[in-house]
């Protein structure tokens, strides 16, 4: 019996938001059960801490410096390699339902297929493929898109505008009149990107993504192999879950995050140990990227705002868990329960109060880089539950899907299939992951390269507008799991730094064909 694949992603979800990972704020029984039945990864890292490069790595099995979509707003080449194309060739029905984001959302000139399909009313479109053939868009037979809220031309926004126009104004306005990420506050604490949303739960995008996935699955023949990427836009900001649900996690009862320094002096002291752009952003002296509100100054954030954001984030995580439960139940009803591999992860994390910061940017610490990753192999394979402590990268997902499908990994894949336990990881030399950041935003250029091992997190800053190439960060993950003490200049760490620097050099010089870096076409 061949194995079907349900690939579930969320957007901007931290490792510690799941009960299986020790989280206590959200109740996530569905994902916790998958973790207990399968493989839970203790240190899963993205190739990038923003959406488009990270998601493109999931699809291509390549690092951003290879696939060329180096930052949000840089479209992945239409003929980039795609694991969905390989699965399609292997006879799999292929679908992506929810948030794709391989192409920019801001698209006033109508350049991108992702933004056109809803209006065209067709499930996919023929495009050039990596190997010179033409086929369905990036290998997907069926595409139905959603993003954060109800803006834009995607399927969910169109559905809301057609079916429930009265609820449109209930959502938070994600961008302001100048098309910057909106800094406007809401909720009880006036926290940025927060709003009480009167939309009924069943119309919210989390349930919509699950509903559309269930519908697609029900249309498949019982003996059809399939690969379904179900991609929830939450718990990415805005934090505007249905108001009917926010009583689940009363924000006044929420403890402050363990890595939120409560006094301004402590926050500033911690930030001053890091590369200079951390403190500059906190103080409102630097905006290096589009992903946080340009007009919001982190230093103004209050403890109560952190509590409220974390509470609403937890509500969104619970809604996702319940939506996944509905999809899994539909799979059981179809009789596929033993034949489906389920893989769950997120594209990157969220600072959520760590170091007094919110949102994301060029900040390579666990808040953004340590992700939930669960693989529940098909029950028909009699999987042995395990916990993998070795660092693994989401660049391994494409090879993992192909391995599940019994297909060889093509030459363009840069990551080997995920290990099933630490012994497997050791035997196949998994020992480090790499994360890249390259941004160029209104003349502010920032370039980071990070390597994570079981013991250390090391970031090297390449020369840019803000950094001269001499700065870096080195954290001992054993003694300093919160990454508060930067040991980059510690003489006792000279040898460690040299070794990790060599690993970064090796990553930069790795063999293989690279795509021409794409052009920044939009802010996001």
């Amino acid at each position, binding site marked *: 019996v061949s194995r079907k694949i349900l690939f579930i992603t969320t957007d901007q979800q931290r490792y510690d938001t799941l009960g299986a990972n020790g989280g206590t704020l959200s109740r996530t029984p569905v994902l916790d059960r998958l973790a207990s039945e399968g493989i839970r990864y203790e240190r899963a890292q993205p190739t990038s801490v923003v959406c488009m490069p990270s998601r493109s790595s999931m699809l291509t099995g390549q690092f951003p410096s290879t696939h060329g979509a180096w930052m949000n*707003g840089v479209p992945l080449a239409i003929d980039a390699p795609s694991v969905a194309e390989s699965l399609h060739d292997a006879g799999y029905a292929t679908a992506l339902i929810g948030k794709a984001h391989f192409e920019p959302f801001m698209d006033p000139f109508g350049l991108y297929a992702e933004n056109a399909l809803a209006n065209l009313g067709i499930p996919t479109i023929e495009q050039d493929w990596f190997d010179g053939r033409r086929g369905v868009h990036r290998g997907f037979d069926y595409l139905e898109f959603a993003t954060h809220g109800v803006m834009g031309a995607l399927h969910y926004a169109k559905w809301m505008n057609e079916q429930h126009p009265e609820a449109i104004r209930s959502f938070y306005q994600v961008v302001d*009149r*100048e098309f*910057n990420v909106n800094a406007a506050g809401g909720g009880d604490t006036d926290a940025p990107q927060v709003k009480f949303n009167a939309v009924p739960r069943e119309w919210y995008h989390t349930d919509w993504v699950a509903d559309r996935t269930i519908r697609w699955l029900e249309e498949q023949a019982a003996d059809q192999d399939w690969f379904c990427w179900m991609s929830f836009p939450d718990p990415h900001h805005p934090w505007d879950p249905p108001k009917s649900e926010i009583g689940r996690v009363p924000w006044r009862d929420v403890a402050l995050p363990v890595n939120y320094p409560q006094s301004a002096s402590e926050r500033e002291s911690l930030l001053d140990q890091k590369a200079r752009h951390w403190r500059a952003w906190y103080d409102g002296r630097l905006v290096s990227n589009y992903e946080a509100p340009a007009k919001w100054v982190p230093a103004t954030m209050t403890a109560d705002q952190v509590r409220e954001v974390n509470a609403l984030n937890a509500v969104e995580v619970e809604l996702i868990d319940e939506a996944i439960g509905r999809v899994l139940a539909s799979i059981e009803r179809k009789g596929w329960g033993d034949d489906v591999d389920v893989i769950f992860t997120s594209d990157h994390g969220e600072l959520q109060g760590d170091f007094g910061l919110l949102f994301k940017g060029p900040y390579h610490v666990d808040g953004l880089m340590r992700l939930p990753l669960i693989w529940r192999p098909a029950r028909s394979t009699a999987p042995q539950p395990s916990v993998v402590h070795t660092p693994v990268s989401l660049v391994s997902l494409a090879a993992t899907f192909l391995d599940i499908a019994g297909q060889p990994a093509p030459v363009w894949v840069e990551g080997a299939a995920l290990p099933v336990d630490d012994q497997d990881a050791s035997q196949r030399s998994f020992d480090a992951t790499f994360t890249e950041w390259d941004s160029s935003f209104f003349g502010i250029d920032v370039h980071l390269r990070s390597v994570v091992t079981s013991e250390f997190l090391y970031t090297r800053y390449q020369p840019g507008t803000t950094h001269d190439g001499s700065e870096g960060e080195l954290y001992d993950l054993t003694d300093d799991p919160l990454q508060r003490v930067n040991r980059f200049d510690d003489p006792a760490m000279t040898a460690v730094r040299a070794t990790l620097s060599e690993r970064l050099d090796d990553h930069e010089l790795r063999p293989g064909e690279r795509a021409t870096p794409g052009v920044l*076409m939009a*802010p996001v």
Partner: protein
Amino acid sequence: MSIDDTLRHFAYRITAAPYTFHLGVIDVIEIATNDSLCVYSTTALPDTLALLIAGGTVGALDQIQRLAESSRVAS
């Protein structure tokens, strides 16, 4: 919009939302026989949307180069 064949100058505006201001100018400057420099400059508001123009300009310059070079071969 204005076109000046003598000066090899083209200027245009986008007057539709979401732009609150836009002015695009393309100048072609002859720097040698069969060799020209094309300058495409744009001013746009709001700032964020200028990024969209900047991205589109790269493709436009590529297309202008292709057109110019193909017409040179043809002639």
